[in-house]
């Protein structure tokens, strides 16, 4: 599964993208797995209320299932326009 990071999430974790081998059932499970890895991940995922998640390029929720998902992206609330 590809995991992408944008804006300050990308800066905190230090990479824009990585491939993750996981059995996580939901986004929240994946977050817990990533946050347990290293401090930089823990810092990025410290407050998920400040984060948004997209599954296969559609906005989703942290309790959504990862079944069949190929691309997960984490980022702060958008500020376009």
């Amino acid at each position, binding site marked *: 599964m590809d995991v992408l990071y*944008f804006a300050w999430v990308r800066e905190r974790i230090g990479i824009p993208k990585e491939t993750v081998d996981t059995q996580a059932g939901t986004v929240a499970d994946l977050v817990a797995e990533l946050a347990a890895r290293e401090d930089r991940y823990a810092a990025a995922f410290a407050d998920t209320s400040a984060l948004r998640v*997209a599954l296969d*390029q*559609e906005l989703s929720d942290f309790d959504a299932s990862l079944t069949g998902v190929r691309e997960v992206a984490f*980022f*702060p609330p*958008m*500020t*376009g*326009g």
Partner: protein
Amino acid sequence: MRIVVQEQPFDFGAEAAAFATNRHDMGAVVTFTGIVRDISGDLSAMEIEHYPGMTAKALEKIAAEAASRWSLGDALVIHRHGRMVPGEMIMMVATAAPHRADAFEAAEFLMDYLKSRAPFWKKEIGKDGSAWVAAKDADEDALTRW
């Protein structure tokens, strides 16, 4: 309906004129243009990051939603990413409709959704460092009116 995501500047005057020309059945055209604003006087540049795989898809979804809610003849969204200096145009939307209320409302709807639902992130590069622009509660709240 045309959706453009690009790094290079766009020609607002030419885009607006082309959009509004030969609309024999549309009485109203509204445009909105977002410009890099230097509030404090020490902004060197704005950097806009985006999520390439998702951006066009998200904008098309928002534009289709606008077209389904209002009697719209046409809509245009252009959004840039990359580095811009104060005074440069970041993006524009345009709407054409038979009546002015539809053109205005659809343009405001596009802007409200684009602000909070299209994957762009702004970083302000100042003389003393840089900072990601925080999303405003008011922008999220603006969605509730639609």
